[in-house]
């Protein structure tokens, strides 16, 4: 799920940037540092939308760096257990298949794939029904339900299922049609 929230961070700035463009340099640095990272508590920080405030800087003893506490608004993405997301299949193998919903990777084990879908090996391994009407292979979109998340300090993993109602393939991959 996406959230728009205000986060805070302490930015260290090298003295060579002190000058007229200090604030701009600070914001650039912030964007570079933060966008695309994952915070265990908040999730993936997708994009910074604005700067809320930049407080007074403090010069550190010993080194010449200055610390600025910056408050900024950003869009974050955090997956939750029980959430329905749409994802793109990235890999199919014997244990199940992997799909990506934006920055988060989701694993669907074969135990949670409907019983009528079998693994077909080949150069494009896929799961498909016996009559071939439904096929899950690389780059196709599936709707899945997240049944578990694992949050490390800098990483979030999920496992999902397509065994419930209204879940499964949305559209085939563009390659096979």
């Amino acid at each position, binding site marked *: 799920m996406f959230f728009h929230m205000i986060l805070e961070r302490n930015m260290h700035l090298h003295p060579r940037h002190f000058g007229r463009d200090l604030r701009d340099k600070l914001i650039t640095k912030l964007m570079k540092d933060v966008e695309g990272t994952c915070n265990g508590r908040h999730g993936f920080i997708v994009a910074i939308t604005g700067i809320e405030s930049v407080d007074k800087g403090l010069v550190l003893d010993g080194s010449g760096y200055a610390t600025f506490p910056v408050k900024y608004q950003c869009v974050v993405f955090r997956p939750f257990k029980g959430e329905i997301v749409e994802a793109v299949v990235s890999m199919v*193998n*014997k*244990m199940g298949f992997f799909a990506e919903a934006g920055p988060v990777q989701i*694993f669907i*084990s074969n135990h*949670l794939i409907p*019983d009528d879908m*079998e693994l077909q090996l080949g150069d494009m391994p896929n799961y498909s029904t016996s009559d071939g009407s439904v096929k899950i292979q690389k780059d196709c979109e599936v709707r899945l339900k997240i049944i578990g998340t694992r949050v490390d300090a800098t990483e979030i*993993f999920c*496992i999902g299922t397509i065994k419930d109602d209204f879940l499964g393939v949305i559209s085939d991959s563009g390659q096979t049609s």
Partner: protein
Amino acid sequence: MGSHEALSVEPFKRLVKLAARAFYDDITTKGDKQPKTGRSDNRGIAVVVLDALTRRQWVREEDLAKDLKLHSKQLRRTLRFFEEEKLVTRDHRKETAKGAKIYSAAVAATGDGQPGGREGDEKLKMHTHSYCCLDYAQIYDVVRYRLHRMKKMLKDELESKNTVQEYICPNCSKRYTALDALRLISPHDEYFHCESCDGILVAEADKLAAQELGDGDDSARKRRQEKLKDMLQNMEEQLKPLIDQLGRVKDLTVPEFGSLQAWELQNAAGRAANGDHGNDPSKSSQGLGFGGTPMPYVGETKVEVALSGIDGKGENIKSENGNAPSKVLPPWMIRQGMELSDEQRGETKQEAKMAGSSIALESSDDKNTTDEKDDVKNIQDEYVKAYYAALLERQREQEAHDDSQQQMSNASTSNGVAMPTERQVGMKSKLADEYEGDDVEWDEEPPAGNTAKNFKVHDLNVEAEASDEEEDDIDWEEG
């Protein structure tokens, strides 16, 4: 209150019995490694123990083992198992050995009241006594939870709900969940590899359904579904009486016995209050949870202490009293008005216990002026006076004819005759109390040894009798 309690306890007892037979009838106390021969197989012992506990409240584990004719180690293992299952509560208390307990009680009864006096006595050892009691409130919850979990497990398997898959490494049998497996995917082949031994992880099959063929087989899956459905159905059928009982019980108040201390206090006070009214044993056992703890003296000492207001000391003494076996007190220790047990006098249990309790009654009266006790005592005294008067006359007649030997035998018979009547007077409850205490519930008949004991002649007893008969005392002491 006794009968009301009995009414609400019955359904709970039935619940416990049903649950025991449903879930614990194949528990064996033998470890897996030990050989299970036909002779040493003790499955079903759990049911026996639980049934026995429904008939008691707080009970000492040694006594329970004796009643059930079980090895105390086996019983303890079973009780430990039940404690883990949250069916019983246990309490372990350090208490001095029995002899020391009665001794301290006697000491306290005569008014020394210095618990510090025991420090010098090396015979006092602290043993840990274990008590156990059924915890009905928890039992109700535990049984419901168990049923809920069973149903949930079957239903989940049936619908193949969203369970997190588990993976096992066949080499080092390390377990992983699917969440862990995500980071264990190997770049080369398509499998998950173990962290430590790099073996290929195997998915853990469904827990309940049979691990037959692979998931790819349709018929296997269908068979699994069938099997699960059957299991669910059987479960519902077989557990129906238990579920019904749960329904009946859910609106009733749960019988609460409280902690061991609280229960003892309650019962001791209640017993003393009831005992003097010649309560019949059945009522006292029902209402006061007698059967658990045979503490014949606690009643007496509790009463005297509680009424005189020395609560702390009373509890101290009470906790020390428990069920210590009495020591034989040497004659020079015996003073008038001393609460003595049979063993202390070196005599048979029943006779002297009566004497003991009668003395206790007297001594307690010396200290307190409870109306109840006085009334009963007065009646007893009058009866005794009249009786002894008649007795003396008869004896004088006989003395005129016989020699000393016959006198002795008469004394003994008079003693014997005196016994039952004395008992009738109001001692019956006390005696019954003590019998109850000894028997721990209705499992065994009160020893019918009374009659046999009546005719034993013990020097001490006879001498005391002879001496006291001459005195026209109000002493309740067995003349």
